[in-house]
């Protein structure tokens, strides 16, 4: 298939960016979206031009490194996949595809389609853990956990930290990301001990870093490649309220 591409090019963090048009031809429908960009880049390098910078690593949909706002949607037109698992069969021959970086103030562009998502790491560093050190822990089976709770915790823990929720939100809210970690740990007895401090510290850090508020549009859930549920946001709000009142 042949495609017209409109790609955001920005030489560096502080330079101005603009859309640049490209053409790719004879792309297999079985190729992945990133393989299509590889082909474009190989052509650009052969012409002596600067290839398009984009983040990616595992190409299996699990590391959370890939991003891309494709035709107005984070991770493109398919549901429940990351960009690296998006395949060209989801596009039509001759289509124009617009490719942008995540657009959110807390995720500044580094170059072209690459953004800096270290704000997510800072939120985890504020409290997204159980404060135990290596060694001196009880036998694993001495902490029985209701299967239903373990499953719900796993649902939340499946978050890959890609930032699609923030990119999808008109307010650039990080509520889905933060609530996934808060929920995972609040659902487990190991996390209960510090539940109060955790939610307060993580929410405070999220606000400090400039993420916006949640206005319940659920765009985050709709675009999440791992289908993290907004019920986690409700659980976090409850945890936050309980922490405030107690």
């Amino acid at each position, binding site marked *: 298939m042949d495609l017209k591409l409109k790609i955001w090019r920005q*030489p*560096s963090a502080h330079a101005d960016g603009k859309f640049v048009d490209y053409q790719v031809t004879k792309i*297999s429908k*079985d190729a992945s979206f*990133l393989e299509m960009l*590889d082909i474009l880049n*190989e052509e650009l*390098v*052969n012409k*002596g031009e*600067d*290839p398009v*910078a984009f*983040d*990616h*690593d595992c*190409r*299996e*949909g*699990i*590391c*959370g*490194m890939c991003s891309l706002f494709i035709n107005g949607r984070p991770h493109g037109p*398919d549901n429940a996949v990351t960009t690296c*698992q998006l395949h060209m069969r989801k596009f039509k021959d001759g289509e124009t595809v617009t490719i942008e970086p995540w657009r959110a103030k807390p995720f500044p562009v*580094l*170059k072209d389609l*690459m953004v*800096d*998502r270290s704000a997510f*790491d800072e939120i*985890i*560093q*504020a409290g*997204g*853990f*159980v*404060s*135990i*050190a*290596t*060694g001196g*822990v*009880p*036998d*694993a*089976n001495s*902490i*029985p956990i*209701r299967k239903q709770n*373990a499953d719900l*915790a*796993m649902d939340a*823990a*499946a978050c890959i*930290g890609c930032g699609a929720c923030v990119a999808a939100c008109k307010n650039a809210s990080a509520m889905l990301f933060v609530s996934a970690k808060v929920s*995972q740990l609040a659902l*487990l007895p*190991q*996390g209960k001990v510090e539940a109060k401090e955790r939610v307060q510290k993580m929410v405070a850090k999220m606000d400090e870093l400039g993420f916006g508020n949640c206005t319940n549009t659920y765009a985050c859930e709709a675009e999440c490649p791992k289908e993290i549920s907004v019920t986690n946001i409700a659980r976090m709000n409850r945890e936050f309220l309980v922490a405030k009142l107690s």
Partner: protein
Amino acid sequence: MTKLDSKIPAGPLAEKWTNYKAHQNLVNPANKRKVDIIVIGTGLAGGAAAASLSEMGFNVNVFCIQDSPRRAHSIAAQGGINAAKNYPNDGDSIYRLFYDTIKGGDYRAREANVYRLAEVSNNIIDQCVAQGVPFAREYGGLLDNRSFGGALVSRTFYARGQTGQQLLLGAYSALSKQIGKGAVKMYTRREMLDVVKIDGRARGVIVRNLVTGKLERHAAHAVLLATGGYGNLFFLSTNAMTSNGSAAWRAYKRGAFFANPSFVQIHPTCIPVHGDYQSKLTLMSESLRNDGRIWVPKKKEDAVKIQKGQMKPTDIPEEERDYYLERRYPAFGNLVPRDVASRAAKERCDAGFGVGSTGLAVYLDFKSSIERLGKKVIEARYGNLFQMYEKIVDANPYETPMMIYPAIHYTMGGTWVDYELQSTIPGLFVGGEANFSDHGANRLGASALMQGLSDGYFVLPYTMQNYLADQITVPHFKTDSSEFDAAEKDVQERINKLLAVKGGHTVDSFHRRLGLIMWDNVGMARNQAGLEKAITEIKALRKEFWQDVKVPGTNDGLNVELEKALRVADFLELGELMAYDALNRKESSGGHFREEYQTPEGEAMRNDNEFMYAAAWEYKGDDQKPELHKEPLIYENIEVKQRNYKTA
């Protein structure tokens, strides 16, 4: 031969590690903060070690290649992690896990290391549960287990098909806790390009800031490499795109011996290659072999019809299917070790029974499990894997069998380390897949996660402390010494040289050609003529690379092509060492299959009299033959026999 001291502690096998810890040197809490440690890589080994060493009180500086320590490729491990808990009461024990690992590795791993690995495996599960890792549970609230290849017990703990992700996020959360406290300094988007030695010891690194292009100097009392394997040398592998062998290779060129480089694992259950634009291969977890049955058509004409698209797998009746693993290996069936399963698939495809348009695929079929257990149970066990398969291949594995084929997955070889996981450069430690220590010639499934976390949480924090005990009076190192000047100059010159070539072919084009040479000659089956040919071809390709590679741009900012060029330049040297090693090892063992050495049934035939050793190669200069050092492997607690998966 005198240069290798494995430092295996004396005493009975089961007491070695306890004795080591009881008598090792320690550093008092007040002194720990005077000591700096550099950790390269934030996968299971690096992330866990960095967190644990920092909790002990050492100053830890951590570097990772991605934008966040949470993205290391350990995250992609799917199936699970082994431990000798014996929760299912099926006869497991530390000894049995040790035994299975040595046997699975085809008697080419060091006994003492493997026993320690089995011994600490239980602590790993305890640690991860305490961190809040959501392992799968039974209705009674206790942990669930599944079985994996090469074992007759169920000892694999798992978190759906995302075990690596959950364990890595556990280590990442421990590391984040230390970063948040200011106890760890984290550097992201950095790639290590050299080790700096002062008076013979590893005292620092040169890293490149991938965003600015700037070379940075970092000094420390000890350096830990946890940089993963070099499977990407083959271009197509299941590794992440940035996974590379450069840190290990640079250490090799500074004096760290490289052991068993030819021991590469080819994973039997990957999605087959579909086009020449393909950038990587995707693994389908080995856990699928618990419920999936592997087959090809019995009749060649059926295989041909399938290849031509004239027939579907569901058209072939039960009695016309060849479940070749169940046929050849009745005791272990579909759960034979990876090397055995991979070779059996290749054997069928080479004989013309392969399926798919290329004939290079076999079926992994869930029909009988779905009939037996119901679609719901299969969905709960493997739902995310089935979804991933469908997204990539556009076929529904609930209705039609998956197609799979072996692919490069893991490297058992790596930097040679002693019992303390210290390389032949004093002060340079190596953990996880980057070292060679625990898996011999073949790694069992669900053992990579176990080894990464064992090294990271429970081994390196002890052994590095033992090394650092006499370093507390050594002041913090400055980075303006002549040693740092020289190392940075070396790196800068290599970069300048690459940018100056301005040739006609992209880095990827060279990488693909290297991958093809390796896959054809140093892949699943090897022979003398092929290996000799590979060495000649790699040498020629390397020469061509330095005359004709095209690296656009400059070093003054983000330059992905330059990053790739530096990695491929190193792969072009490492590939040759792999071929040397494979040529030297005139036997078949585990993943290393020499066609000249096989049993009449086509199984790997070891030569224990001549090759029961780890081959550690010493760098002797460019275009010089590396020197081979042999570490004899002594089995005092296991009877060495030919691996047999036909009968229990």
